[in-house]
């Protein structure tokens, strides 16, 4: 395709010019493709039973009260609360809720949950290289994917960002957020995993500290 045709085609794809303004050969091709693909177009509606099935499953396994409460605290709301304060409040509520009767369904309904000693968090250092970034934060499952996350500090304008964070023992998924919008896995960690929501997360294994 010559350069001019290529530019016209791009303008058409962008919606800047109508089909009629394409050169004749391109116009014919485009009509052929539109007609052919149009044969696959279906004006279908979702099956009537779909919504019922979704709602039944949701009702069967509702979101936990703990998660809803943590979200209520950490998600953006009209009132002004600094991320640090939000995180502190969330941590406080989590600590309080851990002392309350379990809100999650258990396999042994009606039986009180056995008291389990929660292992102490382990301070873990995270390092991320992002030259030119104006802010980098860390988020992960142990902070319920709070998009404000935990702020990293840049080492003297070097583009190297770091933070030491207490992380509960266990296997965690995490990600860095550059300039508040760009989610990036940790290149210093192993192979990232697909989170099923269009993002790749890094995996971190934290062993419990020895007593």
């Amino acid at each position, binding site marked *: 395709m010559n350069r001019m045709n*290529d530019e016209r085609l791009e303008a058409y794809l962008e919606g800047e010019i109508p089909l009629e303004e394409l050169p004749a050969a391109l116009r014919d091709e485009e009509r052929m493709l539109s007609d052919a*693909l149009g044969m696959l177009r279906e004006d279908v509606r979702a099956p009537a039973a779909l919504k019922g099935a979704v709602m039944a499953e949701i009702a069967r396994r509702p979101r936990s009260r703990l998660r809803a409460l943590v979200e209520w605290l950490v998600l953006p709301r009209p009132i002004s609360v600094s991320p640090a304060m939000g995180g502190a409040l969330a941590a406080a509520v989590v600590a309080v809720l851990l002392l309350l009767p379990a809100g999650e369904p258990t396999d042994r309904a009606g039986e009180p949950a056995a008291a389990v000693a929660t292992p102490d968090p382990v301070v873990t250092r995270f390092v991320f290289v992002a030259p030119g970034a104006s802010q980098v934060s860390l988020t992960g499952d142990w902070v319920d994917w709070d998009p404000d996350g935990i702020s990293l500090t840049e080492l003297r304008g070097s583009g190297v960002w770091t933070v030491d964070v207490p992380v509960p023992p266990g296997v965690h998924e995490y990600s860095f957020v550059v300039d508040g919008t760009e989610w990036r896995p940790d290149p210093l960690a192993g192979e990232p995993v697909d989170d099923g*929501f269009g993002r790749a997360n890094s995996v971190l294994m934290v062993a419990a500290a020895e007593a």
Partner: protein
Amino acid sequence: MQTLSDRELVERARSGSHDAFGALVERYQDPLFRYARHMGFAEADARDILQDAFIRAFRHLDRCSDPDRFDGWLFKITANLCRTAASKGANRDEHGLEEVMLLETNPDPETAAEASSRRRRIRAALAELPEDQRQATVLFYLEGYGVKEIAERAEASPSAIKMRLKRARESLKAALRPLEDEVRSA
């Protein structure tokens, strides 16, 4: 409930309102179901994909960082599930069964058979495209989205989407030209 914005519904659903989430399901189930069908999935598979997508979305509403763009977030979940299902070889042959059922109920079986044959070949040409090109093609030619909207949904730049569409056009032209010639000579 249907008059509320996505943001209001998401916030109510986060607070535990199933009715609010039900309103979101009603709002987006038809376009997403159509997308899954256009991506080549049989009705039963498309239904399963959507059911899974809505349940995942509900369970992970906290990950929807911008409730005003809930539709784009939900689309990404659905598109990822479509990709996963396709990689597992979700039964595209079901389309063949559906075509047979259409033929059986059509009053003009000869014409219907020709149209059915064409659709199968067009569907096969579409299925041969790499997944990212197929998605761009479906969204542009079948769903009627513009390049910028596709770019947002596919998390790619408009330039990348245009390139995918141009490459897809070349492949589809080569695959569909003989079909077009057959129709002309008939």
